[in-house]
């Protein structure tokens, strides 16, 4: 019988190794904050985080970086005052800036078995310097590579024991594509529902992409 539910945050985070690449979903909403705190407690270091924004001075992504656990962050957005920028200036953090759409597509490509693709995005900018471009259909395009990751940290609204997920409103954002691209996809969910509760045509992230599900009821930090 397939049962992806895990009993504790410790069990959810078990086995993440030093040097792992970790996808961190969320965009204002849908951030797997409990799992991020679990990662801090779990102890893995030399991490590469792939996350839309490293723009904050506080919160769990900032905490991981401030604790010296992150070697590199791949993101679309940093601020002058953010922890990422501060560490980068001190030479303690590598930052790779990626346009947000390219970031989402590289992650989807990682999940979909597309090792590389061409996009006009950023092809005519400094981000393309020293990189491979080609003209396709009259448009200058930049070669981008898939992002596959050791771990994906994902937030959900509902989950069943097969790992089928729904995401509430705009808490969907990066969650479905990051779930696809993690070799180990760990989910925190507000609600656990019996198999069959989510109608087949309304599943947002299919259980095939999910490895572990942790129940984190609203208002609890697990």
């Amino acid at each position: 019988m397939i049962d992806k539910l895990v009993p504790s945050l410790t069990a959810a985070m078990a086995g993440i190794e030093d040097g792992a690449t970790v996808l961190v979903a969320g965009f204002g909403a849908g951030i797997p904050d409990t799992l991020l705190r679990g990662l801090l407690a779990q102890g893995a270091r030399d991490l590469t985080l792939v996350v839309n924004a490293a723009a904050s001075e506080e919160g769990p992504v900032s905490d991981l970086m401030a604790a010296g656990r992150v070697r590199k962050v791949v993101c679309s957005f940093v601020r002058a005052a953010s922890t990422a920028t501060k560490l980068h200036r001190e030479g303690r953090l590598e930052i790779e800036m990626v346009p947000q759409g390219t970031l989402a597509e590289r992650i989807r490509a990682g999940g979909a078995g597309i090792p590389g693709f061409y996009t006009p995005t950023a092809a005519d900018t400094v981000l393309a310097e020293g990189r491979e471009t080609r003209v396709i259909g009259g448009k200058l395009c930049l070669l981008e590579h898939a992002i596959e990751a050791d771990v994906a940290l994902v937030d959900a609204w509902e989950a069943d024991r097969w790992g089928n997920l729904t995401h509430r409103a705009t808490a969907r954002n990066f969650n479905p594509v990051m779930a696809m691209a993690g070799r180990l996809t760990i989910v925190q969910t507000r609600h656990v529902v019996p198999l069959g509760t989510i109608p087949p045509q309304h599943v947002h992230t299919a259980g095939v992409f999910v490895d572990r599900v942790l129940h984190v009821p609203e208002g609890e930090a697990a």
Partner: protein
Amino acid sequence: MIEARDRLGIARRIAQDIPDGWFVNLGIGMPTAVSDYIPADREVIFHAENGVIGIGPAPAPEDADPYLVNAGVQPITLRTGAALVHHADSFAIARGGHLDLCVLGAFQVAETGDLANWAHGLSEPTKQIGGAMDLAVGAKRVWVAMEHGTRGGEPRLLPRCTYPLTARGVVRRIYTDLAVIDVTDAGFTVIEMVPGLDFDTLQSRTGATLRRG
């Protein structure tokens, strides 16, 4: 006296030019306010990068749903007829040419339509690429909403951008506090000035040659 537009005035002016039925993405900052000024008899659908198709009016603070935000992470509502998608599908919309219009803020625009809106320089710590590069190359047309000059009085409309580019040759029209300016094959063409402003004064505040529209 020059009746310069304030930020909401610029947003209101842009809203006038969006026809019924267009599908539009509004950038963070000044452009976001455009949706508040669409005439009631027009149905314009607004997109946000985080997967919203059909943004409605902002909620009262007490009605804000933390699960429902726009690309600026501000609380929103959904319109009747809205749809929600994930981030890759949302950018498939943006990059696939499905947006009739994207309105972006800018630091600088060149007379060739080059857009610079993500950094003042490569050594600058603030790097806010976000979705702008994707939107700028993917939308059917890009309009810019910005102040005509910087607070220090430097021009933002230039022969060439000095800041790192967001995309090359994409801007079609610029709405500033002083004027509405088209980017044409011949360069900047003034199609409207605010009351009290004359062409020579506008030219003196602009870093590139203007043509009369």
